[in-house]
Each structure stands twice: as C-alpha cells, then as structure tokens.
C-alpha cells in the first residue's frame, strides 16, 4: 500500500516542478538585502519604545475607537440594500467552486494549464486575504458550502446536538491537515488530487452542516470560516448585527475580541504555519535537517521530517508564547491565571501573522496570479479561448527594490499594530499605566523576536 502511494506520487511529480515550499507555482524571490533586514529590525525596536513612551502617561483605559458608518454614503447604502448583488456574488462563488472541482478532475493534468491549482493556491489562498483586510468578512458571503447549503434549502434544524466540549478543535485539526497538504504533501498542485480532495471535503462539510446545524459546524469545524473570522478582526470594516458597515482603524477589531483556549491554539497555529512555510523555503532549513536539496527529489525527500516539523513548529511557537506570558505574570504579580492572561494577549499575534503572510506571498501572488487571466479562457487546458485571453503574456519582471521595501514596511507596520494592540490590552487588564508597562515588556520582546524572525526568513537564501 505504502509502495503504491509512493508510485502514484512519483508519477504525479513527473508533471510538477521540483518545488519545496508553497502549494504551487514558481518562486523567484531574491532575499532582502542585509541593510534592509537590520533597518527593519531596528525600526521594530524603536517603534516598540516609541509606542510605550507615547502612551506611558495614559491614566485610564478607553475601550472606544473611531468608527464611521459607511452606509451614510449613498452608493454604499444602495449597494448594501441591493440583495440581488449579493446573490450574484453567491452564484459566482458556487460557479467557481464547481468549476474548480470539474477542472481538477476532468481537465489537463498539468498544473499551469489547469484552472484548479492556480485558483485554489494562488488566488484564493494567497490573495483572498486582501479582501478581508479591506472589506471585512467576505468569506461569510462567498463560502460556497454555506451558499450551496442555503440554496438547497436543507433543513437547518440539526439532527444531533454538537458536542460543545469539542469547541473549535475540529477546525484546528482540519486546518492542520490543510497546512500539511499545502506545505508537506508532495503534489498539492496535481489537479486531479485537488479536485478529489475538495470534493471529499465538500461532502464532509455539507454532511456536517446538516447533522450539527449550519452555524455550529461552520463556527467550530470549518477551518476557513474560523481562519477568515480571525482575519476579519484585523479588517478595516465590520458589518454589525444591526446592519451598519463600520469603517474603523485597521486592527482595532482585535480590541473587541476575547478568545477561548481552543481559539488561542488556532491563532498560534496560523502563526506557526505561515512561519514554517517561510522556514521550509530557506536553504538554512535543509542544511539544518541534513537534506541536500540539490540533486534530490523535492518534497518526497522531506515528507517525514517536514511532517514532524509542522507539528514541532506549533509546539515551539505555543511554548515560546506561553513562556513570555508566564514571565509577564511573574513580574506583574497579578492574580490572573496564565491561561487567562495568554487568552487576553493572544489577539496581538494576529497582525504579525497576517503581515508576514502578505509579505511572503506578494511576489508569488503577482507572478503566478497572472496565470488566472489565461486560465479563465481555457480552464480545462483543452486549448479553448473563451474570453480571448488564453495567449496573455505573463509580466515576469519584478521591481525587487520596490518589493523589498514593501516587504519590510509591511512587516514593520504589522509590528507597530501588534505593539499597539498589546498596549491597549495590557491597559485594559491592569488599569494603571505602571503595571501595564511592566506587563508589556516581555510581550513586546516576544513581538520584536517574531518580527525579526519574519525579516530573517525573508532575508535568507531560499529555494
């Protein structure tokens, strides 16, 4: 059985590039130069102190932040009230979903000639996050499983009670499997594999929603709903239950959330997965694990070690975060438990995770994302030219100086947002500014560490 598995993988590998990192596609990134690495690290440290100095005299905690109801703008209000527009998005999402499965299964089995790999790994996973940062929880509207469930008008009354003690651990497990497929499985871009796995997962989601109830399943077991819910807290906009569309400072939504332990673990999993994605792109990693990437068989050589690595990276990130929280508890001599303190501080990790994702995927998205222009005209790779774009010439020239500056600036901005969130959270917990400043010190040190790690990953020789 094991032999057959490896033979299948080897056959699929013949059709795929010899890639180690990312789900699919070529990566031509040059490491950011040393001076920018040091500049970014220095800026992170200075920004941390600047923010503390700026707020050191804050006497009391104020929970509020600036908001503006975008529905006051006529155009936004008209668009919001126009339900048919929303229905168009829903239909498009279902259409793209079915197209992804069909092209994956029936189309040409060569990743760059097939719609499914580019759409799933580059457009959706690499780029969809931007929509969330700008427009809030877009996944909530275009989630194809939710839309199919609603379209079919399944009975929403659950057949069984969801076991509450499971909380969102099923979503954690599914996200780990997804990350494993993206980063470790040897042929994540093989179209037929992608089509089959999406189909199987869709059956699980639809059955889960029917058995345990739509919202229960989505909020606890559907990893992408949980992931995009996290990202939405970082977003500049939020739709409230009374129908307002609030524009707010980016990341301020993190001040409204209070995560449970299972959600804390999910958030650390996001951070560890994006960091591990960066790590396995570096030559350092392969030197460290003693694998010679030159002359090897790509991911097949590292399937076991990277499986252990992805699990270990979560354990390391979790342990490091908890250690710094324990230090914060000791030096503030607070009665608040370590778990409680960790749950309160953990939202501050989100900006760092998101900006690293944005920096890491930027050129990948720009380069490989252009393939979709060709593929919308020939999604199956059968030689069609439906929209006349199948001969689109991909722009391959990247302005690396611009890219490097963008990556460093984005990471430093993420750091500043995280530090600001830490400050507001600590002030909320400890009320008086002195204790709040003391409590922040270890967490800020941790933030600087994460930021420098992100910059180091981008500045290290990669494959």
């Amino acid at each position: 059985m094991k032999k057959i598995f490896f033979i299948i993988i080897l056959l699929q590998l013949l059709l795929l590039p010899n890639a180690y990192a990312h789900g699919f596609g070529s990566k031509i990134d040059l490491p950011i130069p040393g001076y920018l690495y040091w500049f970014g690290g220095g800026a992170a440290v200075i920004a941390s102190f600047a923010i503390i100095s700026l707020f050191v005299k804050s006497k009391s905690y104020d929970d509020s932040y600036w908001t503006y109801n975008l529905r006051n703008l006529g155009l936004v209000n008209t668009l919001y009230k126009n339900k048919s527009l929303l229905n168009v998005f829903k239909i498009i999402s279902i259409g793209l979903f079915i197209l992804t499965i069909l092209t994956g299964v029936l189309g040409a089995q060569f990743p760059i000639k097939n719609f499914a790999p580019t759409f799933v790994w580059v457009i959706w996973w690499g780029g969809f996050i931007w929509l969330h940062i700008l427009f809030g929880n877009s996944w909530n509207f275009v989630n194809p499983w939710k839309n199919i469930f609603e379209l079919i008008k399944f009975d929403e009354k659950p057949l069984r009670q969801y076991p509450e003690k499971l909380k969102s651990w099923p979503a954690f497990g599914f996200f780990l499997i997804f990350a494993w497929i993206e980063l470790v499985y040897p042929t994540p871009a093989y179209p037929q594999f992608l089509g089959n796995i999406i189909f199987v997962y869709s059956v699980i989601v639809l059955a889960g929603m029917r058995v345990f109830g739509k919202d229960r399943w989505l909020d606890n077991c559907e990893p992408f709903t949980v992931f995009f819910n996290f990202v939405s807290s970082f977003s500049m906009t939020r739709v409230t239950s009374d129908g307002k569309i609030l524009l707010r400072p980016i990341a301020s939504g993190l001040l409204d959330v209070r995560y449970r332990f299972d959600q804390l673990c999910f958030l650390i999993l996001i951070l560890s997965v994006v960091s591990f994605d960066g790590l396995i792109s570096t030559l350092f990693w392969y030197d460290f694990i003693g694998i010679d990437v030159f002359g090897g068989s790509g991911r097949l050589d590292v399937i076991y070690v990277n499986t252990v690595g992805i699990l270990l990276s979560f354990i390391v990130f979790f342990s490091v975060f908890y250690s710094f929280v324990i230090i914060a508890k000791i030096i503030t001599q607070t009665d608040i438990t370590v778990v409680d303190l960790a749950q309160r501080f953990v939202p501050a990790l989100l900006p760092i995770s998101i900006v690293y994702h944005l920096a890491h995927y930027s050129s990948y998205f720009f380069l490989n994302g252009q393939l979709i222009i060709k593929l919308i005209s020939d999604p199956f790779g059968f030689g069609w030219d439906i929209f006349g774009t199948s001969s689109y010439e991909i722009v391959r020239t990247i302005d690396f100086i611009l890219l490097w500056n963008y990556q460093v600036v984005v990471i430093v901005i993420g750091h500043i947002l995280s530090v600001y969130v830490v400050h507001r959270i600590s002030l909320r917990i400890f009320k008086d500014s002195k204790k709040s400043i003391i409590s922040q010190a270890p967490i800020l040190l941790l933030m600087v560490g994460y930021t420098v790690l992100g910059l180091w990953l981008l500045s290290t020789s990669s494959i």
Partner: protein
Amino acid sequence: MSTQKNKNFLVGIVGLIFLAMVAFTFMGTEDESVGNQIEIEVAKEVDVEKIKEFEINIVNRKMTLDPPLISVEVGDQVLLNIKSDENLRFHIHEYDHETMLMADEVKVLSFPAMLPGRFDIEIHSGEEEEKAILIGFLEVMPKA
C-alpha cells in the same frame, strides 16, 4: 416538497460528479506537458566588461560550484561554459534557456540577464527525462 426536489437535485449532481471523477481516475491521464524547445542564445556583441563568465562542471548530477549559485546583475551578459560527466539536458527556469550536454564536452550557453530574480537551474537525464533535478540557482540582482 420543493425542499425534497432540491435535495434530489443535489444528490443527482453529487452523483454525476462522483461518477465522472471515478471514470477519469480509471481512464488515466495523458501527459499534457509541452515539448521542450532547445534554445541556445549565443553571445551577441556586448560590452566586454559586462560579460560574466562561469565554468560549470556537473559531476554525479551536481554542480561543483560552492555554493551552487551563479550571481550576476541585470544587464550582464552571462557566459556559461558547461561540462557534464554524462548526457543531460540543462535548463534555466523562467529564462527557459536550455541546451543538451554531451558527456565530457564543453557547451557554451550565453544570454543577456534581463530578468531580475532567483531562478532554478535544473537538469534532466535521459532515463527520467521528465523529472527535473535542481542543481543550483541563477541569481540576477537588480541594479543598485
């Protein structure tokens, strides 16, 4: 009643997709990869100072350069004198320059480095022609 119809419709669609998947899985797939084109861009008349020459030796399917990195700047004319201990196809990604190497014969590959980035250098051997083996990188740095 309409809910029942919708359910039947869904079951029908799911069934059809499943049957199609099974059918295509068993039918196997054709190799859709495009035939590789051999392209050797011989050095044109260029500024001598901009010619960056490298001796590339491939022994046991590995480049002897340490680290296996060819580093140039945008605008340089890359000149590679490539020698291998076996017959191989030598290929630089994205630039899509490639040449057939015959055992112990020096082959010259020259081209202007106009595209910045880090590009995989791969070889393909006769026995496993479709399998790409990464042997190094071409690193084209932007001009400061």
